[in-house]
């Protein structure tokens, strides 16, 4: 049961950040972007009601998330300690801070629902809502990483809260932009509001990002004190992933800004209506992944605390260096024979068979992906050229590779469990978080293949089936970015993790590329499609050269 509690706990942790962004983003959007009291005739009721609805729904959901976090923590504690965790748990910062935050979020949401909803044009009510949010924001300081630190605790807690606030303002603002686009496309708001609010949000977004950097850099310097700490620890690695995702999101933001500027100069709204909404959708995927990565980062020990467990840059580089893929697997008997020694705590014996088994799995999966990506590139070449179908027609079936990969992974990923090993299917799935992740990943890969194959076969260009691929791929990216092998040997775990996080980033690039390919017109469509397939190729290469440390 601990596996499920652990799973749900982390799920709610990410959900909590999204709800927080909805609340904070909604407040900032109302106070600084809309400023409805200055322009009461410019906005209609639909816009204001939808804006406030996102805010209070986010607030109620945040309170629920806090409650669930406490319940799940109690469940997790009960499962691990084999006893009821009270009264000790009632005295912890987590319980007290969580309960306080839940109450404050409930009060804020209640106020917005009861009063702000009925007075959305009133500056007074918006200010009261902001004042009501302040204690809730501050209460979050006792629930962050820094709360348990000994040095510079107050400074780190304050900076973390400012960092979260700035990130939530940006992400929540993007949620409001998505809401605005839906209203605009449904013609429920005046047409001029879309470019006007986009322009206003640009300045607001720049300020938010500046605040993210101003608060984030000192935190990073407190937790990472060497270059090696940045390159050779899980904490540093996830920070680099966060920076990469931030750059991606800023790239989309820049595209939006240039489209708004173009509209301002030429009055041409083609990009504004046919590109910007989809860039914002892709940006939303990136920002959500960024939030979950931030949650994952908080579960890593800071680099400064594990100086003796840091990998060197040579070891990190070696993880990605090209080599001959392993195409011979050790036998299942050899693997099982070594398992008892490998998992023993006292007298542990590293298992060469287990390492080679894992290398084989990853390398073969890499060959699958690389071949698929080459076929995919050829299929794009076919659709963009006059090459006869008889030569390249079969390349369109490249997604079938995912189906075959799913079957391969089902048998190979957890050899000690059913169908190959002695541990039953349900027992292994629900008692081991890592097996559960592998089962979900295997299922996703299988479904991905079938859905994408069907989507590419259909002649209906408006079919929604095609969107399953980017959604599942984005989810796969999330899994890879938060998938942890952290166990009793942090350095080995990190060297495994670094390959997975790199693939997570490429997976997200693939998802955004495919999403934009489906939404944009040429030439943006073709560029996005190529980037998507190129990201698949990169993932294939990482897997093909993967080598696991012996442990």
């Amino acid at each position: 049961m601990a596996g499920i509690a652990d799973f749900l706990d982390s799920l709610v942790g990410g959900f909590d950040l999204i709800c927080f962004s909805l609340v904070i983003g909604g407040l900032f959007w109302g106070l600084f972007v809309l400023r409805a009291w200055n322009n009461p005739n410019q906005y209609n009721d639909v816009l204001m009601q939808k804006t406030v609805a996102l805010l209070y729904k986010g607030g109620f959901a945040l309170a629920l998330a806090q409650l669930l976090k406490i319940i799940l923590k109690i469940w997790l504690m009960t499962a691990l300690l084999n006893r009821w965790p009270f009264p000790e748990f009632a005295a912890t910062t987590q319980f007290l801070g969580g309960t306080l935050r839940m109450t404050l979020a409930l009060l804020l949401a209640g106020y917005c629902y009861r009063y702000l909803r009925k007075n959305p044009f009133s500056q007074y009510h918006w200010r009261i809502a902001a004042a009501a949010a302040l204690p809730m924001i501050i209460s979050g300081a006792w629930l962050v990483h820094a709360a348990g630190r000994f040095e510079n605790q107050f400074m780190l807690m304050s900076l973390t809260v400012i960092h979260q606030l700035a990130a939530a303002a940006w992400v929540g603002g993007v949620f409001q932009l998505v809401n605005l686009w839906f209203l605009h496309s449904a013609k429920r708001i005046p047409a001029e509001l879309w470019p006007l609010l986009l322009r206003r949000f640009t300045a607001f977004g720049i300020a938010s990002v500046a605040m993210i950097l101003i608060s984030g850099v000192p935190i990073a310097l407190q937790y990472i004190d060497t270059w090696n700490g940045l390159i050779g620890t899980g904490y540093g690695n996830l920070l680099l992933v966060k920076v990469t995702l931030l750059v991606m999101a800023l790239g989309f933001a820049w595209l939006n800004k240039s489209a708004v500027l173009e509209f301002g100069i030429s009055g041409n709204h083609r990009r504004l209506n046919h590109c910007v909404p989809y860039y914002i959708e892709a940006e939303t995927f990136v920002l959500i992944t960024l939030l979950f990565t931030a949650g994952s980062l908080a579960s890593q020990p800071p680099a400064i605390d594990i100086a003796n467990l840091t990998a060197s840059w040579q070891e990190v580089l070696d993880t990605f260096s090209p080599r001959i893929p392993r195409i011979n697997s050790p036998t299942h008997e050899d693997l099982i024979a070594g398992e008892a020694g490998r998992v023993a705590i006292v007298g542990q014996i590293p298992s060469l068979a287990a390492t080679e088994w894992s290398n084989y799995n990853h390398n073969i999966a890499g060959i699958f992906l690389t071949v698929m990506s080459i076929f995919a590139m050829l299929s794009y070449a076919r659709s963009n050229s006059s090459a006869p179908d008889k030569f390249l027609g079969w390349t369109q079936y490249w997604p079938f590779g995912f189906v075959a990969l799913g079957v391969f992974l089902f048998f190979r990923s957890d050899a000690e469990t059913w169908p190959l090993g002695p541990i039953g299917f349900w027992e292994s799935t629900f008692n081991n978080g890592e097996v559960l992740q592998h089962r979900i990943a295997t299922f996703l890969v299988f479904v991905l293949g079938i859905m994408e194959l069907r989507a590419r076969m259909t002649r209906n260009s408006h079919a929604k089936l095609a969107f399953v691929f980017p959604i599942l791929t984005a989810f796969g990216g999330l899994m890879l970015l938060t998938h942890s092998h952290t166990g009793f040997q942090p350095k080995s775990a990190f060297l495994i993790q670094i390959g997975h996080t790199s693939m997570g980033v490429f997976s997200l690039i693939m998802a955004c590329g495919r999403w934009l390919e489906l939404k944009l017109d040429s030439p943006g469509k073709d560029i996005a499609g190529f980037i998507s397939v190129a990201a698949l190729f990169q993932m294939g290469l990482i897997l093909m050269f993967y080598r696991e440390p012996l442990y």
Partner: protein
Amino acid sequence: MKNTFQLSLLFILLIQPPLLFAHAVITSHSLKIAPLRPARQEKVELTFNSQIELGLSQIFLVHKGDKHELLHAVKGRQQGHIIVDIPPLKTGHYAIRFRIFAADGHLTEDVIHFTVEALPSDTKAKDSNSNSSRF
């Protein structure tokens, strides 16, 4: 299309994989400085990088064959400092396994391996005692 996008976000949000909590780590322990000696009641000091909720944490002594024995621990004088009582042990390989609930809400599992062995001085003293008992 609106529904597709909303459902996409919902799907990504709701099917989030498990994280493995691992924030609090041991920054130093007394086993590095003073190895344990056989047949003695000993105390091991552990220092963490974070504040610990000791009442919700468990520390086990792991014997050969991975047999677990729950140990008693108390807070030390400094923050993040824990003192663990170790019962008298025979020479051999052991481990201390702990599940620590840190103040930031993260749960950490880790293991410290150690060996109990007699020092030459112990052997001499034992011999000396044995000899003296003969006289």
